């Protein structure tokens, strides 16, 4: 990753590249914020030399609604509708870490049945994200068919979410003290039918994408993340595991019922776009297996919510904590500070996109071909709302 700088802008004394657009050597173009090859509303300010990127700057803020600030003016229970919007694609980890922070600071023990149901909801959330995320990588190379297949099955998983929680995209199923309800009658049977479709989908995607000559030629060797970058740039989850570094909160700091489940997250060492996509493909299979294990091991009935004070008058003792879980993109954490009042003093969300889409993407895009921009960005699974909260 030490490109030949003779083709590149000269570096000024301040360490910044000198880009003289009037030299006709460089062209500045914007990818996003409205662009099919951008994951959500963000944009990349690219400086290109021919079709090669020589500098990239990520711009965010198109979705900024000041979530963290708004939560400082809301009672703890009122923070939930705000918090879940910090990642539209996978809102359930937001519910979980917010509940977990409140429970930790207030000293609440979550009943066992609720822990099983939370684990199930989090894995279902991962499943519905990966059903689009895995084939979505093919979409960046104009291979859109898998995405259509995945979207269909995702819709069926959203049906399960709807019967479990009442909502398709935003659920607010996980609340302080537990969850909102038990599994509906016949839920496990219907979920198993959906999982069989996912099994089939996994095989089809293997044929469609991973054995496809164009996909392989374009994704292999593209945007390699060296192992030594994992900590310096803040690389998490599947992107770190594709570089041979085991980063999965479910294994390193088991929460809820993960310690009672049998699973081993996949790691590889190639660390290119192909490897990151492949890791997510294995994650998809692991999620299906985990959902089956959870449904087999969880009790039929039980307490689903610990007793909590009246939520409108609930004052949480002064303190601070950091709670985390593993989202489909990697470690997803929340730092909460309380001052003894009925509203949080400060809430700070830490999602993997914060580092993936800024420091890391800016670096990875240098030396890349402009046609590979979308593929590289999607391989990091960025979710802009969690950057600009």
């Amino acid at each position, binding site marked *: 990753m030490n490109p030949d700088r003779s083709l590149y802008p000269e570096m000024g004394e301040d*360490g910044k590249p000198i880009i003289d657009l009037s030299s006709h050597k460089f062209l500045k173009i914007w990818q996003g914020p409205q662009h099919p090859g951008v994951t959500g509303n963000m944009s990349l300010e690219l400086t290109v030399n021919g079709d090669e990127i020589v500098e990239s700057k990520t711009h*965010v*803020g198109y979705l*900024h609604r*000041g979530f*963290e*600030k*708004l939560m*400082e*003016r*809301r*009672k703890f229970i*009122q923070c939930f509708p705000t918090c879940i919007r910090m990642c539209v694609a996978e809102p359930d980890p937001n519910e979980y870490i917010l509940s977990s922070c409140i429970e*930790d600071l207030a000293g609440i023990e979550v009943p066992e049945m609720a822990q099983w149901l939370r684990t199930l909801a989090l894995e279902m959330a991962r499943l519905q994200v990966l059903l689009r995320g895995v084939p979505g990588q093919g979409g960046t190379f104009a291979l859109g068919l898998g995405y259509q297949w995945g979207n269909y099955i995702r819709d069926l998983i959203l049906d399960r979410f709807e019967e479990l929680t009442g909502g398709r995209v935003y659920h607010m199923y996980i609340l302080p003290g537990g969850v909102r309800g038990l599994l509906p009658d016949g839920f496990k049977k219907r979920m198993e039918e959906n999982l069989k479709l996912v099994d089939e989908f996994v095989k089809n995607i293997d044929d469609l994408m991973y054995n496809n000559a164009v996909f392989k030629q374009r994704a292999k060797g593209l945007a390699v993340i060296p192992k030594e*970058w*994992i*900590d*310096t*740039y*803040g690389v998490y989850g599947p992107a770190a595991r594709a570089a041979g*570094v085991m*980063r999965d909160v479910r294994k*390193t*700091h088991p929460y809820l019922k993960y310690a009672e489940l049998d699973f081993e997250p996949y790691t590889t060492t190639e660390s290119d776009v192909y490897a990151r996509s492949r890791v997510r493909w294995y994650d998809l299979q692991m999620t299906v297996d985990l959902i089956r294990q959870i449904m087999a091991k969880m009790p039929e009935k039980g307490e689903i919510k610990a007793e909590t004070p*009246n939520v*409108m008058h609930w004052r949480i003792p002064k*303190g*601070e*904590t*950091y709670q985390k879980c593993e989202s489909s993109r990697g*470690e997803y*954490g929340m*730092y909460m*500070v309380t001052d003894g009042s009925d509203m949080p*003093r*400060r809430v*700070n969300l*830490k999602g993997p996109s*914060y*580092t993936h889409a*800024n*420091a*890391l993407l800016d*670096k990875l895009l240098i030396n890349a071909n402009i046609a590979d921009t979308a593929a590289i960005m999607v391989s990091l699974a960025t979710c802009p709302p969690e950057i*600009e909260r």
Partner: protein
Amino acid sequence: MKDLIKDIESRFEVSDYIQKLDHLAFVTVEKEQAIALVTYLRDYRKFTSLTLLTAVDWLEDGVFQLTYLLNNPSELTEIGVRVMIDRENASMESAHHLWENMMTYQRELREMFGIDFPGSPRINEDFILEGWGDLPPYRRDFDTKVYSEETYFPRPGRQSNDPATYMKSKMYPNE
């Protein structure tokens, strides 16, 4: 974790220490020692990963609290290094040389809290906001409600309620 805290206390002046969870602790040090401690933790105690850097505005005390949350992936422990800095002309030594992703956090804090990190790359470039001329919006004295009322105008026919009062009237009408 206790050995680590003892080690830190022997080298730095720790004014406060909280063992939050088995794997998570918070220590408070003076502003002058904070970056030295963070560097020590990274280089000698295997806290090689920066989880986050953020600020808390203690308006009533006239200070910002900066929290550097570090992760030790080999021993699976986390430590939050807290430092209090004055709200007036808030400024902190930059640590962008320690992690490549640090400059993003510092740039955000400059924009959202008005905390300066002299020398940090692109520190004065807009990050999330564009052309913002008001108080840094994440400061406690920036009132989002007043800002909204002064900046935006309600469409006719729309009714707005105070969320707390409205929820109380719906959920606990007899209280």
